[in-house]
Structures are given as C-alpha cells and as structure tokens.
C-alpha cells in the first residue's frame, strides 16, 4: 500500500518533516488557502488538498482567482441564495473545488442537485442531524443513475462507480476519514487515525517519523478495519441489509438511526442493479 496522505493543521513548522509525503492541510480562513498550498510546496510536500470549513453560506464566500489549480474541499453549512452565487459558480466549476454540505439540512439536498447540474462536484456530509431519508433516496437515484449529465454527487457517485459484489464499500476517504488514505496530525505532530481520534486524543504515534511502515504500527492495524468492531458490540448495524455500502457511516458517531437501514438497503439494491446493467453493457460491447 502507498503511504497515506498526512492531514495537518495550517502550521508551516509541521510541514518540514513531511517532505516527499502527500499532504492535506486544514485551514481556518479562505485567505489562507493559497499560502498553505505554497508552504506545502516549498517544504517539498505534495499537496493533496486544502480543507476549509466555514460557517458562512457558500454564496457569501469569496473564491479568489488564485485558487485556480489548488484542490480545495470546502465545507459550508448551506449554499445560500443562488442569485448571490453568480460570480462564484464559474470558479467552482473551473477550479478543483469540491463543495461539502451537511446532509441533515433538507435544503442542501436540493442545493447539491442544482450545483451538480451546473458541473460542481458536491459531497453530502453525514453528521448528528438525521437526513430526510426519502429526499436523500431521490437524490441518490438522480446522482447515481439519472440520465441528465451532472457532476458527481458524493457519496453516491463513488458507490455506483466502485461497487463490486462480494466486497464492502468504504467511502470514508471522501471525508478524509479512512486511515488507508489519510492520517491526521495535531498541532504537535502527533498522529491519529481520524479527526475523531484527534479530538479524543487517540494517538497512534507521537510523531510521523516513528511510522515508517504503517502496517507495522499496532494502532494503525487496529484502526484499518475499525468497522469490524461493530461486531464485538452487538451493534444493530451489523444486521442491516445495507451494511456493505454503509459500514455504519449513515449513522452518527456509531448510533443507529431508524431511517437509515431502509435507505441503505434500497441504495444497495439500486447500485446492484446498476452494476448488473453495466456488466450486461460491457458484455454486449465485447460481443
């Protein structure tokens, strides 16, 4: 396996030891995006993504022209007024910006559809608020199987394009929450498997230099298949028909939600059908 991307706070002092590594940086302010990208570059890191979380609506956020070419993950609470987006929309489309909205706000499901139809990649982030599962199912069908051209709406695009029978589908990396893809560093350089691990102080190493091969780190190995821990806890999710495409991620902090099981099962059924159709199509193409 390749070494995971190192996700760290915006502190140039942390970047120096990351030479040659893939690096993602979490910044607090939009105006720090370019500077962080330059600092990673000058430290010899390979920029994976700049992550910015804002409490302002997307429409209220300035997108400067110098973001062009910088991969940005932009977490906003909502889209805001569409008419205020007129200046921004072309930049969102042209630049490498992925927009993240919380799935618990029903308006965001509509916003995702609008932005995706305009060519902007959108991701729904599942947090403590329970989504409107029916509306989400509609969006899933549009995102994964809708005939109208549109940009990816995650995690559904990933599910539809990566599904394979006989395998679980983990889409945590879309949200920087998969230790195969991302390791998280705190301001002192300590290493955790996830953002949750960072906030809880669950570190697997005091410094990245002590993890030459992640597979030799016991904490890392335990974290790789953390989803299997559900089976030790007699968690209700382990009986879910849609587990293979969810792995507990539609829940919140491991909690089981009443509506998510039906949603996950329906999503799995649709994705299987899509997979089957693609198999038929490729067979037809071969013959």
């Amino acid at each position, binding site marked *: 396996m390749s070494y995971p991307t190192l996700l760290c706070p915006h502190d140039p002092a942390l970047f120096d030891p990351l030479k040659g590594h893939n690096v993602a940086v979490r910044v607090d302010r939009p105006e720090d995006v370019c500077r962080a990208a330059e600092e990673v570059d000058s430290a010899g890191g390979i920029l994976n993504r700049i992550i910015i979380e804002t409490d302002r609506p997307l429409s209220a956020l300035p997108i400067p022209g110098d973001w062009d070419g910088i991969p940005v993950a932009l977490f906003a609470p909502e889209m805001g007024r569409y008419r205020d987006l007129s200046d921004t929309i072309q930049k969102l489309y042209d630049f490498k910006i992925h927009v993240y909205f919380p799935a618990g706000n029903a308006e965001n499901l509509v916003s995702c559809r609008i932005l995706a139809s305009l060519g902007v990649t959108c991701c729904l982030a599942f947090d403590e608020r329970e989504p409107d599962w029916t509306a989400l199912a509609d969006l899933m069908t549009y995102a994964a199987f809708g005939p109208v051209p549109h940009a990816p709406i995650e995690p559904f695009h990933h599910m539809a394009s990566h599904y394979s029978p*006989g395998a679980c589908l983990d889409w945590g990396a879309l949200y920087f929450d998969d230790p195969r893809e991302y390791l998280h560093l705190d301001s002192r350089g300590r290493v955790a498997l996830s953002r949750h691990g960072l906030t809880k102080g669950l570190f697997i190493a005091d410094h990245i230099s002590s993890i030459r091969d992640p597979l030799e780190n016991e904490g890392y190995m335990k974290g790789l298949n953390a989803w299997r821990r559900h089976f030790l806890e*007699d968690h209700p999710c382990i009986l879910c028909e849609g587990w293979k495409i969810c792995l507990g991620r539609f829940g919140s902090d491991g909690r089981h939600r009443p509506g998510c099981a039906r949603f996950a099962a329906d999503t799995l059924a649709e994705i299987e059908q899509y997979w089957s159709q693609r198999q038929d199509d490729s067979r037809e193409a071969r013959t």
Partner: protein
Amino acid sequence: MKTIIFKATDLCNSNCAYCHAVRKGDASIKTMPLDILEQFFVRANEFLSEEPGETLKIIWHGGEPLILGADYYHRALEFKKRHCRQTGPRISFDMQSNLTLFSRDYVDVLREMGIRSFGTSFELIPGLRGRGGKEGSDRYNRQFIDAVSLLEEEGFSWGIIYVVTKPALEAPLSLFRALTNFVPSASVMFNPVTFYPDRAEGIAVTAEEFTDFLGAIFPEWWRHRDRYPGVDPFKSLVENIIDGSDSLICVDSGKCADTHLSVSPDGSIWQCGRSSDWGMMRYGSITDCSLSDILNHPEKEMLRKRTVLLRDGECGGCRFWDICHGGCPLDALAETGSVMHKSPWCWTKKGFIENYFEPVTGIRHPCARNGSPHPGKNRDCAKPAGADTIQKIARERREKASGLRTSPHKEAL
C-alpha cells in the same frame, strides 16, 4: 487428487464448545515430532513417484495449526525440498485455522507454501468459541478481528465455516446477515454441529432443525445471490442442480475412500479428519505403511462397497442420489453402528431441496437441461420442470461467472 487432513498437533489455544478435537482422549503425542513429519514427506514422495498422474493436497489442521510456530513450517518445507525434489510441484498446501495466532512471522513461510486462503470459523453467539464464557468469546473475537485485518493487508483471503448450534436456530436470517456483513467476500459455509454419541444438551441440532435453519435463509440468499456469491451449501447446490456440476464435497461424493486420508500427530493414518478425532477407522502408521498400502486397505474397500450397496438398497430410487450418495459414512457409523447405512443427515439435503430449494427456485431436481435429463441422473423425471428457468439462470450464471470471485477453500473435513 488425494486430500490429506494433516493434524500435526492436537493442541489448541481455544476450547470451543462443539469441537471434537478438544474431546479427544489424552494421546501421548500431542504434536508431531520432526522425525515423523520428515517421514511423511518421504511417504508423499514415494506415493507420487509411483503415481505420476496424482497430486496431493495437504490441509494443515489440528488442533490449531498456527500453535506450531513458523519454524515448524520452515522445517516442513525443508523436508519437502529434501525428499520431494521431483514430486514437490504436485504437492499443495491449505490451512484450516482459527487464525487468532496469526502474525507477521507466518507471512513469508505461508506464502512460500503457496497458501493464499484460509478456512476458519467465527461465532457471534457468546460462550461457544474461545476459552469459555462470554469473556472468553469476546477476547477470542477481538484476536480474530485483529488477525483477519492483518491477513487481508498481507493479501490472504479467508472464508468461514459456521457451525450451526441450537442457539443459532433462534434467528437464522439475522445470523446470516451478520455473518455475510462480517465477511466481505460472503464466503460462508453452514455446517450442523455434530455430537456423537452424546448429543450435547443445548448445542446439538437435529437434521430437521438444520434443514429449517437453511430454509429460513434460502429465499433471501436466492433473491440476492449475486450479493452473497460464496454462501454454502446454497452455492454448491445451485452449481450441482442448475449448472450440472459433478463437484461434491467429501461427505456427498461417495468417493471419500479414494480421495481422503488424515494423519495424526503420532503418525497414525485415518480415513479423514473426523475419523481421527473420533478414533475410528485407523488404517496404520506413516512409519510402517506407504500411502499406497493405506489406499488399498480392506476397510477402504468397505467404503467403496457402501456406495454400491446404498445405491441398490436404502437409497435406491432416491432422486437425490447423484448429489448425496448416502452422505458421510462416519455419521452413519455413529448413529447406527455401521457405515453400511445412509447418513442420518440425509434428511437435510432431501428435506431442504424438497421443502425450500424447489419451491423457491421453481426448479425440480433432477432437472432437464436442453430437453434431456442429466447424464447419469434418475430418469423418472417425467416433466422437465423449470427447464426454461434453469436454462435462463444457468446462462446468466455462466455469463456472470467471470466477474465474481471464487470463495476460499471450504471442505467438510
């Protein structure tokens, strides 16, 4: 191919409630000494030299084979290289392990042995696997999860043989979901727990109960069979009944006399793993018999005669003969005192197909394919019931086969 269930040790780090091995009496030799291990490879070479068309599949079994340590397997490979210079390529290895002792130390040697997948077991019901009690189960399962994570990272695959016990009968579908969610490849085989002659209270299941357990799961499996590609006995039955495959596991093949042997730690040679655990059908010792001698042992001849006797007798006219052959002779021996009877588990296959498989799939066994019955199958199938369905499904399965994984080895041992 001859399959040898190789029990190099009777020791185990677990004490599972339904395991035969832990109930074995106190044998003086718990782990095979290296001189007997070496002698085995001498015998293997001798046999393969005499039989140029033959191959040997050696399944490391136990006890718990990983309790032996990596060095033991390095020595085994040394002996193989030393004594099987010409015949070595015709020897392959597999392993049946609880995996809880798997570590990085084993990776290289297991790869060198050509082992790519493991048969193992997992249990969600507390108190059945592990050292005992819920605490024992929890500890066991934590170790198991760590081990399979490492196993997968190192590129090995694995599949579960799930032993169906009385507590499992309470919620078959939930259990099925949990197991197939736990094993990404959905490589799961359901086997009934077998206890002879003392059926353990609270654990043992009857043939009827096991049949109904399978029947509760089968409609779900059939509806989503692409989702759960490796679930047995369903997958194998579909292959036998719909695809016309002749491949049968040892208990159903009617040919175990010619295909299976087992070696225990003291070098004794037995009919199979079960017979070794039960102390029945010992044919001799690796120290004074060749494998050819063993395969021609008079008791082996008795097993061959059993197949003919049952076909013309107890099982005469049974429409499931070609996929059952009277079942496991040891089950018959344990239940009736003679191998010359059909297995008491016969009901499971017959009852499951009649009550669940055929009604759910709409396909009757033996079925007509392309308008004619299977070669060698009963000719009393007046109407080729489900012929259109079967052809359609068989075609779909053939077409999809290339896109699906095969499951790791799973063999009734």
